[in-house]
């Protein structure tokens, strides 16, 4: 039962990173100067993300619900110790979702207000991705101290440090990378395609470099990453494979195989998450009082059964309709004449 739930958490996280990530990344890309391509780029992003942003965002809510129903101690521990980053995350989510929608649906598409929306969308995408990274990094540092009520040790130290900050930057880079890869296949405009390819290549390098920095920063932590990975061949294999894929992606991007590139990029994100999970499994959180394991902190069996039923039945409805959603839009989008607005 617990395995199923952990699987659902993992799957939702993966989908949130891959689908939601490219959505965040699109915002980050819009922050970069685009010269006269700016409007065309905005059109493509509106068209590609418009139909799916709501659904992408649901993965996060799913994770929250699984946590508070199935693993209440883990949920409440995080919500107390990471109150500040969670708050920052929420502000980002609120601004991002509304700025994106407002930009598209504002009846008066005048330059000044559109600029403001775009700026807000971009900044909040970057901001939210960054704080997501901070939260992810803080889970297993062993700095969460549930017994303390001192402001610094209880609410700030858990997420403060070079390591969480680098992970935050790392997440933002991965998101921007995923978005570039994704957007290449979403437009017929050759110039724009070349821009996304160039961005993809740059972010690929950046992800690699910042990834190395993450390892470096972890040396200051209680449990440095290199040692942890070297301990176990399985973990090592995952991380080596993820690194090899950097090269593969580099080649694929320049060869212009949008679909294959997307799959490999998603695979790489999956490997990074898998490596992360293997590193700490089955513990979700490490506190100063010891680890909080999915297998120890789970809610009573009756609850877990209902949760699994809800998730499985939900999936039966959700996945076909999600695939339908993607097919309805993706099959034609790439070929739709540029500038066609989908809702007219």
């Amino acid at each position, binding site marked *: 039962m617990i395995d199923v739930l952990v699987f659902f958490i993992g799957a939702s996280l993966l989908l949130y990173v891959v689908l939601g990530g490219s959505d965040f990344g699109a915002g980050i890309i819009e922050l970069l100067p685009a010269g006269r391509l700016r409007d065309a780029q905005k059109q493509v992003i509106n068209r590609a993300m*418009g*139909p799916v942003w*709501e*659904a992408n*965002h*649901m993965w*996060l*809510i*799913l994770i*929250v*619900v699984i946590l*508070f*129903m199935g693993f*209440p101690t883990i*949920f*409440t521990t*995080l*919500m*107390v110790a990471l*109150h500040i980053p*969670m*708050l920052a995350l*929420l*502000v980002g*989510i*609120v*601004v991002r*979702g*509304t700025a994106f*929608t*407002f930009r*598209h*649906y*504002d*009846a*008066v598409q005048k330059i000044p207000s559109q600029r403001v929306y775009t700026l807000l969308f971009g900044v909040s995408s970057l901001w939210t991705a960054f704080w997501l990274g901070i939260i992810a990094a803080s889970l297993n540092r062993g700095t969460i101290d549930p017994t303390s*009520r001192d402001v610094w040790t*209880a*609410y700030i130290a858990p997420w403060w440090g070079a390591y969480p900050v680098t992970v935050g930057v790392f997440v933002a880079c991965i998101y921007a990378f995923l978005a570039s890869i994704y957007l290449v296949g979403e437009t017929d405009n050759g110039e724009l395609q070349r821009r996304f390819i160039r961005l993809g290549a740059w972010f690929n390098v950046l992800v690699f470099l910042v990834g190395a920095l993450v390892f470096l920063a972890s040396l200051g932590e209680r449990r440095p990453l290199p040692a942890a990975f070297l301990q176990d061949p399985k973990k090592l294999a995952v991380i080596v494979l993820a690194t090899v894929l950097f090269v593969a992606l580099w080649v694929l991007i320049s060869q212009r195989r949008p679909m294959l590139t997307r799959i490999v990029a998603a695979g790489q994100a999956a490997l990074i998450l898998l490596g992360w999970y293997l590193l700490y499994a089955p513990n979700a959180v490490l506190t100063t009082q010891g680890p909080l394991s999915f297998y120890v902190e789970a*809610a*009573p069996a*009756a*609850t877990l059964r*209902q*949760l699994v039923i*809800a*998730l499985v039945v*939900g999936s039966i*409805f*959700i996945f076909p*309709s*999600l695939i*339908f*959603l993607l097919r*309805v*839009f993706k099959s*034609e989008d790439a070929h739709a004449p540029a500038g066609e607005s*989908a*809702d*007219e």
Partner: protein
Amino acid sequence: MDDLVAARATMGFSLGFHIVFAAIGMTMPFLMSAAHYVYLKTQDTVYLDLTKMWMKGVAILFAVGAVSGTVLSFELGLLWPGFMQHAGPIIGMPFSWEGTAFFIEAIAIGLFLYGWKRMPRWLHWATGLVVGISGFVSGIFVVAANGWMNSPAGFDWVNGSPRNIDPVAAMFNRAWLHQSIHMQLAALQAVGCAVGGIHAWLYLRGRAPAVHLKAFRIAMMFGATASLVQPFAGHFAGERVAKLQPAKLAAIEGHFSTSSRAPLTIGGLPDVETRTMKYGLPVPGLLSLLAHRDMNAEVIGLDKFPREDWPPVLVVHVAFQIMVAIGSVLALLAVVFFWVRRKAEFPRWFFWIVIACAPLGTLAMEAGWIVTEVGRQPWIIYGLVRTRDTVTPVPGMVYHFYLFLALYLGLAATTAWLLRRQIMVVQLKWEGVR
């Protein structure tokens, strides 16, 4: 403001904000689908314009509903960790089904908004309806979770923590039915009448009157029907509260001492110090009749509860009076609507009345939630766990409160401004066409 007060204020404020958009999200898709249906049947393009206009409004409002809802699911843990620790496993079930319903809603809205000409027409129409249905169903699930806080069920309370959890029994607690019925009607009523009022105003302004008259009719059909049924649903809720939460009922009515042949006080201000009602008009025996269907039945008063277990009586009583007054006004409005509707044309004065009533439904909905939520105090889980014992230990909650206050006020202002622009542009376009 101490941390507890700040946390309560934050929760109440975020919920009060969310519920407006949630109600719109549960109602507008139905209005939209109705207009869309007529268009597909008659090919009258006025209905197509109307559908699209409402659709753009829905897209904007839906986004605000979605983000404010996300904030809520985090806030349950950020503000009330002590509550979620116990309650999560027990009432997670309606939330997990709610999540499923939202997911379907989110997918359906993507299909509906962007799916024009990409799908068979009736399939496209159906996706719009699915948005409404899944929103409506998810509303029922959340309210069931709230019902559980008012009428806990599905577990045994052993030494300060729950045992033998039965999530199904928890979801179908004894308050879920009356709360869901009453809430869903409230959404239809509040949004139906508000939309009717807006279109009445635009109609009187004389621009594109044909469209606004049609919009007015559709919106009022929903709003008026719900308004007619609502007093009965409200009465049903009252009866249930008398049984399940006597302290809340006593606060609602400002009923300080237990008595048979209890009077119902219309209006009035309860004075907690002297334990009396001031200025009200008491109707002897009516409270006993309404609460227990018997003029002579005994109604438990606040004297049966220790002082520290009283909810804030004044707030609850006043909020209740506002809700019931509005409920009566809107029911009357509905009767008039169905009566004038049979004539060839609506008289002008009727539009003015609807305009005057436009904000009332929403006001009643907020007041009703204050009755329910403040009336439950000092309990977060009625009779078992006190709100103050579950609040987060994180200090400085005031800043959390101000942060979200500022964020939401900004959001509300932007949304209002956007909707105004929306209406203006549509007006100009239609004028150009004519």
